[in-house]
């Protein structure tokens, strides 16, 4: 592989005469990183691919027996796992839609001359930088039915957020919206500030109404960057583990990552969990692929 990558270098140049050649520098700079990632990211995945065809349990010393595709077949026929995927899908839709709505909305509000705009923007971005697990834990106090400030501020009495199986998923999504709307806002602001001003001036001359201006000028021009925000957040929300795991233990909030964690590290069904991990992995790679394609598209502009 290394020899095929070699490009020609003028052997008589002074740089080639002493020190490393460009080719060896390139290889020296790139290959260790690729190797590191292969050893610590790809090799483990090959390892778990092997286990996904066995009935291995990491909690016992019993040797792993090859069971073929049984794990995959069982998982795909397991209504329990399907319900985890359904919960995850519902969670992703609620939380990403909420983030899009709030994030883009706040960006529209901020996209004007406002005193201390820089400071306000930075303050608004703070939630997304914080640890989901640690801040998520504190939201338990905020959601507390008897002395949480959320119920107090909204006058909801002793409304159950996390203890009610129906409500818990929305509560987790609400916290996620709080944390990640700033991300959508940040990208939206970049998109909004890139809209050429002369378009608005032209629209004003044509006496276009605010709705027309928004739907015909603002939205189409910001759409690509909003799409990036949506795909990225979809991918992240699909993987959510910390927040839901910390906030509740309701079966109605058992996202696919949580199911995977329980299967692997509480029930110790190692082989089966490896198979489920692979199903999740393929889904994530598919979304990543879409994401990267979009990134490159937007970059080209």
């Amino acid at each position, binding site marked *: 592989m290394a020899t*095929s990558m070699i*490009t020609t270098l003028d052997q008589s140049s*002074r*740089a080639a005469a*002493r020190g490393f*050649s*460009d080719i060896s520098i*390139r290889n020296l*700079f790139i290959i*260790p*990183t*690729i190797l*590191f*990632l292969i050893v*610590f990211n*790809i090799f*483990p*995945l090959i*390892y778990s691919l092997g286990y996904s065809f066995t009935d291995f349990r*990491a909690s016992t010393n019993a040797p792993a027996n090859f069971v073929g595709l049984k794990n995959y077949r069982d998982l795909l026929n397991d209504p329990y796992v399907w319900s985890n995927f359904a919960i995850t899908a519902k969670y992703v839709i609620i939380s990403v839609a909420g983030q899009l709505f709030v994030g883009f909305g*706040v960006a529209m*509000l901020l996209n004007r001359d406002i005193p201390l705009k820089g400071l*306000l923007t930075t*303050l*608004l971005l*703070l939630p997304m*930088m*914080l*640890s*989901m697990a*640690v801040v998520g*834990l*504190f939201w*338990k*106090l*905020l959601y*507390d039915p008897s*002395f949480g*400030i959320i119920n107090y501020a909204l006058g909801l009495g002793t409304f159950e957020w996390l203890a009610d199986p129906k409500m818990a998923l929305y509560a987790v999504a609400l916290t996620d919206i709080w944390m990640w709307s700033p*991300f959508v806002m940040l990208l939206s602001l970049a998109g909004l500030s890139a809209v050429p001003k002369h378009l*608005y001036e032209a*629209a004003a001359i044509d006496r276009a109404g605010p709705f027309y201006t928004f739907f015909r000028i603002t939205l189409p021009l910001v759409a690509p960057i909003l799409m990036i925000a949506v795909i*990225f957040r979809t991918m992240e929300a699909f993987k959510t583990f910390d927040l839901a795991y*910390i906030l509740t233990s309701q079966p109605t909030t058992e996202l696919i*990552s949580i199911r*995977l*964690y329980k299967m*692997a*590290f509480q029930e110790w069904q190692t082989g089966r*969990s490896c198979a489920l*991990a692979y199903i*999740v*992995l393929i889904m*994530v*790679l598919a979304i*990543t*692929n879409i994401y*990267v394609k979009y990134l*490159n598209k*937007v970059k080209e502009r």
Partner: protein
Amino acid sequence: MAAVRTSSEVAANRLAIVAVLVVTIIFLAPIYWIASTAFKPRNLATTIPPTVVFQPEISPFVKLFTKRSQLRTPPTPEEYAAAPWWERVVFDGGEKIVRDGQGQVQWSGYPSRFLNSLIVAITSTILAVGMGTFTAYGFSRFKVKGEADLLFFILSTRMLPPVVVAIPMFLMYRAVGLNDSHLGLIILYTAFNLSFSVWLMKGFMDEIPKEYEEAALVDGYTRMEAFFKIVLPEAATGIAATAVFCFITAWNEYAFALIMTNRRAQTAPPFIPSQVGSGLPDWTVIAAGTFLFLLPVAIFTFLLRNHLLRGMSFGAIRK
């Protein structure tokens, strides 16, 4: 935006400003609540209506760092008078500080977890940014066959859900004795951040004009010298921004730490929630621990404010 002219547009603008302020207050309320609860006496942490105005106390932090037990009998006046101020605040809360046979104060689990977080986050950041800078330069300046595929491969390793990677890593670490070790977590976080650092640094490297190095090469520098003496100083801002992002990611990480560590190398994120046992937790202590843990990230966010967009989009969108 079109220039503001009519009185209705002025009013709309004012309304938007008010709305922005309201939104900011709502978004910051949970963070403010963490900070204020960290300085409350325990009995004011869970009141209805919520206590907003109070005399700030340092006792939650004293309790955060020490092991305590319930006081069966109140301390005698002599004991109380002999105790240092930090012990008195614990007495006031109806508890006493646990001491060992030699009378040494027993620390809680928090300081060591905080230290672990620092060790793991700083080391993995140095490794990831170091390797990432070299690799980004390689991708930025040289022709690499299948560059797009390699970059996608690098990025995809970052996108994997932590639990998916954690299952085989747990088994492998168990086989080689890396479970619950600093080194084990450092390797994981380095691998996790390396892909991010390559992507972000490549953006910064692409922005440094090639002509700088070419001029240096003409002047007789070797490529290595040109990299270290010309490119690295130019990339300093980018390296700093990337490092802060990597640090924050490693500092905040929860799932790997939960699965791979339990005592010796446990970091703060899995430890802080484990303080909430059964019964009524002391939220002031949790808030104090949370406050100290969030403080570095909050400071870094302000330092990073001009690079946030770039970092959060993997260097794809630049201002």
